Each structure stands twice: as structure tokens, then as C-alpha cells.
């Protein structure tokens, strides 16, 4: 039986007085693959940073595994969550050094986990390469390996394929699917790409101008959306 991993209540985030996110209620389940779709600027990345407890909300609460999280969160909690950012920030050094970084920060030395993570993203044998010899798609996969190597309970993915060619998109999506089946982690993926959402999602939330217009199971969202605006977005008719 699955339980709620995140419960969001009355969540708001403003920057310089401008309200960019306003979510009265949202539940994300344990072990689910939840996809947030919406146009650029809808507040998707902001929501991920809040779910990662990297920034405090302006208002409202986020509960994690039934516990209300106050800010700043305990390090142990932040370490159960990892994230792949839209633009992967890679530290200088080798692929291996990058992927092992999260483990090193936790004082762990688990070469077999690094090996597995590299294999999962199709980068076995790349460990010794300096990162500045890698392509954009490979770097994005390094970022993905780096996020999964610490065996997090939640993985947040912010447009992980936004700037990639179809081959790398395919590889990254395959890794995400494998991860979902094998790891038991909750995965929250943000994308503006409706086709990607259709390929991956179990449940979809449609975010528009900082508000969740609709949250539905994937099939319903794509076949028979409840909201007029979701319908337009799914059909690719939305003007934004």
C-alpha cells in the first residue's frame, strides 16, 4: 500500500512581492512517478526547489513522510532527496569524481554504487574521463548518475532532457524508467514537453502561472482532461 511522501498545504512562494507559486493542496505518493507539465515560467522549477527544501516557502507547509518540515531542514532529510537541474552544474575533475561526490560528502566510499550508477545511465567506462571532454548529453547523464548514486528516496528532475538530441533523450528517459522500476524512489519530473510526459508519467500535474490547474492520472489527463486549459495544452493549442 502506498502512502503520501509529500503533502503540500497552502504553499506559496513570492519573489520580490511577486507571487510565482500558489498551491493550496498537492499530494505526491511514495514510489510514484509524478510529472509536472506546464509552459516555461509556470513555477515548475520553483516547486522543485521547495520540494528539495533548498528554499523556504513564503507561506504554507510541506509535509514529508507525514512530518511537517520547517526551514532550514535537517541535513539528514535534505540528503534523502536529490535533484537533476536543468543545466547540469559539473565540478572540475573526472566523471567518477562528479558521480562519487554525493557519497563523498556523506563520508561514504562505495565504488560499486558509482559503477552501477554509471552503468544505469550508459556511461560505464567513462569514469576516468575529465568532464570537459564530454558532450552536453553525456554531462546530463553524469548529473543523473550523480543524483541516483546516493540512493535517495526522492529524485527531482528539472527538464533533464531540455537541450538534448533524440538519442540522449531516449537514454535519459530509459534510465528514469529503470530507476523507477528498480529503486523504489519517488520521482518528480518537470517538463514542458508534453510527449515526454505522456511517455513517462503515472500521474500528471498541470502547472500554469503558478497554479495547479489539474492533477490527474496520466491516462485521464491525456485522453480526457477535466480542465479546458489542460485540454488545450495536451492538444498543443495552448498559446503562452
Amino acid at each position: 500500500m502506498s502512502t503520501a511522501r509529500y503533502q503540500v498545504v497552502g504553499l506559496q512562494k513570492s519573489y520580490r512581492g511577486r507571487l510565482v507559486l500558489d498551491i493550496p493542496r498537492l499530494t505526491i505518493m511514495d514510489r510514484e512517478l509524478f510529472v509536472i507539465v506546464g509552459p516555461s515560467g509556470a513555477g515548475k522549477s520553483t516547486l522543485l526547489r521547495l520540494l528539495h527544501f533548498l528554499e523556504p516557502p513564503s507561506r504554507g507547509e510541506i509535509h514529508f513522510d507525514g512530518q511537517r518540515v520547517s526551514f532550514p531542514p535537517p541535513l539528514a532529510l535534505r540528503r534523502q532527496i536529490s535533484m537533476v537541474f536543468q543545466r547540469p552544474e559539473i565540478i572540475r575533475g573526472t566523471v567518477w569524481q562528479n558521480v562519487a561526490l554525493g557519497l563523498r560528502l556523506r563520508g561514504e566510499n562505495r565504488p560499486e554504487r558509482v559503477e552501477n550508477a554509471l552503468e544505469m545511465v550508459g556511461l560505464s567506462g567513462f569514469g576516468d574521463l575529465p568532464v570537459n571532454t564530454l558532450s552536453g548529453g553525456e554531462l546530463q547523464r553524469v548529473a543523473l548518475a550523480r543524483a541516483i548514486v546516493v540512493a535517495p528516496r526522492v529524485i527531482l528532475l528539472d527538464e533533464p532532457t531540455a537541450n538534448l538530441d533524440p538519442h540522449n533523450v531516449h537514454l535519459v528517459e530509459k534510465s528514469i524508467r529503470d530507476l523507477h522500476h528498480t529503486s523504489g524512489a519517488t520521482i518528480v519530473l518537470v517538463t514542458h514537453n508534453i510527449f515526454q510526459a505522456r511517455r513517462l508519467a503515472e500521474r500528471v500535474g498541470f502547472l500554469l502561472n503558478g497554479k495547479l490547474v489539474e492533477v490527474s492520472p496520466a491516462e485521464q489527463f491525456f485522453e480526457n482532461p477535466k480542465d479546458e486549459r489542460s485540454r488545450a495544452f495536451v492538444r498543443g493549442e495552448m498559446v503562452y
Partner: protein
Amino acid sequence: MEILKDALVQAIGLLLRFDPALLEIVWLTLRVSGSALVLACLAGVPFGALLGLAKFPGRRWLLVLVSTGMGLPPVVAGLIVYLLLSRNGPLGGLDWLFTPNAMIAAQTVLAFPLAAGLTSSAVQEVPAGLRLQIQSLGATRWQERWLVLREARRGVLAAVLAAFGRIIAEVGAVLLVGGNVAGKTRVLSTAIVLETRQGNFALALALGFVLLGLALLGNAILLRLEAGSRS
């Protein structure tokens, strides 16, 4: 032009003969400026990193102070250290005035703001996205600062180079607190001043060439280190 040629010949001659007086001066120059550089960087780099990365009250003022210190005239730094170390000064008991220790202290005061100020700009140049990424990977606050400092290492090396350049050739501070005593506190820059005053232009210029050579060597070594750390 003649004098330049004479000076160059004389400099080479001095070096080839391993002139003991010259070697002593070179050695003291390296010892004083090297020690000052190490001390200033050991204190200035961590201080600059905190100044660039941590948020605390008074930070802005400290930044202004440090930037001002980057332009501190050597002779003023020397004067301050002189007063501190003079017999009636608060540190008079150390009995350091007119010793190499006083010169090291004065040059440390000169180099510290450069090491701190340029390090703080270097760490602030590290993209905010990278800091967020490092937090996301589970770094504690201190781990985050350490990693950011590592990412900024080129800028930090530039800070070290600038500090080295500032003190290897300065004359005002070491002259005031060292006194240019032959065999005790005479370094290259103060020797140049002395020889110039006495009209030994060729010798002064020869010493100048040696000083330039040292600066060149120091920079080459530090840049070599930088190249080694790049990947």
C-alpha cells in the same frame, strides 16, 4: 644604453661568482617575502572565502575595509607596524624592530588584504547554480564552502600571485621596519635604493635584474601549480 649593458653584465657576473653578499641578500628577500606570502595566504584565503560566501552582519564593511587595504601604501603599512613594534608600542616587548621578523610582519599586513579581497571576488564568481547543486548533493555548509573555494581555485591562485607581486618588490615597508642593515635586514629592494643613492647605478640596476628574475621565477612556479591543478 651603455649603463643597461654594463648592469646586465655585472648582474650576470655577480650571479656567476656566487657573490656571498648578494646571495645573502637574495636569501633574505626570499625568506622575508616567502614567509609573508605564506602567512598572508593562510589567513587571507579562508578569510576571503568566508567574506565572499557567508552572510553575517558587518560583512559589507569588512569588504570595504579589505578593498581599501588592497591599496594600502607600503610605507603606511610599514609605519603602522613600526609604531606597534617600537619600544613604547604595544608589541615593543617582542623586540622585533629592525629584524627580519618585523619585515615579515609588515609584508604580511600588505599582502593579506590582496589575498583576502581577490579570494572573496573569486568565490563570488562561482555561479549560484553550482552552489545550489552542491547543496542539493547533500553538502553541509562547510563542505559547500570548501567545494566552492576549490571551484574558484584559479581565482585564488591569481590572488596569491597578486599578493606575491605586491610584496616581493616593495621597499617602503621593509625599509622602515627593517632599516636596511647590511648583513641583517638588507633585501634586494632596499639594496637597490641604497646603491642608487650612492651613485652605483650599474650595481643598482644589476640588483634590479636579479629582483626581476626572482619575480619571474616565483610567478612561473605559481602558474605551473595552476596548470597542474587544471583538468
